[in-house]
């Protein structure tokens, strides 16, 4: 084999190796993965405006189809037990699935709000954050607790970030010196007066043997 053929062979091997390495790299890149569209600073500003929560009294549930879409983030079994009328079920851990995102993007195009709910607003907030960060717009979290009991789907408004007890006052009251009255347990020693029993004389009648 002359030098020219050898160099051609080596070049060929090298080019094939480069193509293989490049192909591997291309396969490794996940082009379909969602990317962050908003920075933490932008989301922080959104949260400070406090517009991400919506109270149940502020929405007209009867007109839900035209204005907004309610999204139930709970498990399928929870959803099947009970849910808001016309609610869409998108399970929270799968919220970034392509199929789900396409549905949400379509709702965005229709210029409707997307109202997320779960067992608590806290549970729904994680989905709000992730969806918001990948560019889904008009997202709100419904400020309610939902629970299934007595064979019905029950919804109660939730007061977020309210301190339920004045803890400072509680500690102050607890530290007040308690004037515990002495509980006197009397031990009564009754005096027993025994009146002497007067023995009556037995009068023996005279006579007899």
């Amino acid at each position, binding site marked *: 084999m002359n030098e020219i053929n050898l160099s051609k062979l080596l070049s060929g091997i090298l080019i094939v190796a480069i193509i293989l390495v490049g192909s591997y790299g291309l396969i490794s890149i996940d082009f379909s993965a969602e990317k962050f569209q908003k920075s933490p600073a932008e989301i922080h500003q959104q949260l400070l405006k406090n517009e991400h929560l919506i109270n149940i009294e502020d929405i007209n549930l009867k007109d839900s189809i035209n204005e907004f879409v309610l999204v139930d983030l709970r498990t399928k079994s929870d959803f099947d037990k009970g849910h808001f009328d016309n609610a869409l079920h998108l399970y929270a851990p799968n919220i970034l699935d392509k199929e789900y995102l396409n549905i949400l993007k379509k709702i965005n195009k229709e210029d409707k709000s997307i109202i997320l709910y779960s067992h608590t607003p806290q549970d729904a907030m994680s989905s709000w954050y992730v969806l918001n960060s990948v560019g889904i717009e008009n997202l709100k979290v419904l400020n309610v607790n939902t629970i299934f009991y007595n064979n019905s789907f029950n919804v109660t408004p939730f007061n977020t970030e309210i301190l339920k007890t004045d803890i400072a006052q509680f500690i102050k009251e607890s530290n007040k010196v308690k004037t515990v009255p002495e509980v*006197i347990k009397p031990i009564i020693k009754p005096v*027993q007066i025994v009146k002497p029993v007067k023995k009556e004389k*037995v009068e023996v009648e005279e006579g007899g043997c």
Partner: protein
Amino acid sequence: MKNKNLLLFLVLLVVSSVVFIVPLLTSDEEITPSTQLAAFVSSERYISSDDLANYLVNKDPSIVLIDLRTEADFNSYHIPTAINLPFDQLLSDENQTLLNQQKQTIVFYSNDHLLADNAWFLTNNLGYNNIIVLKDGLNGFYNTILNPVLPTELASTEEQELYLLRKASGIFFGVPYNNAPEKVIDKVVEKPAVVKTVEPVKKVKVEIEEGGC
């Protein structure tokens, strides 16, 4: 011709190198929306009130407690040793050194855990991975440590012991142990004696009939 081949070779080399290196640079630790979602739906970020109280009572130096509420709320009451970092100042530059460090574990808390969760999402998004959240916030801490519910008589020994432990922890946080039994003093009191009269029993006369034997 030779130059063209060389050029083509170099172009291929550069392109393949870039394509090969890019995925390697995006390591598993890089935060993507998917990794973030997995972390968000997990409850691993939470610490219970009992565990936090245990750390604080033992004065564990590895814990930094951060109160995310407003300054007014913080001044009204805060868990002892907590630092106030209002949520609106969370991402300011001067706080990043404190939040982004590996030496200590940072515990966020608020009244419930919604605000603390939001702070955790933001800092997790920035790549800070040494932060946890107090489950149920101050409301939960009050119900668990400061004013625990007295277990019923039918409660298990573990529940009874947990209650006593919580009451003991409460002392550290300023709540006295006020469920001690009342002091009972034995005292002999002179009371008017009850007179017990014993009525004499009248003996029935035995009438001896007259007569002889």
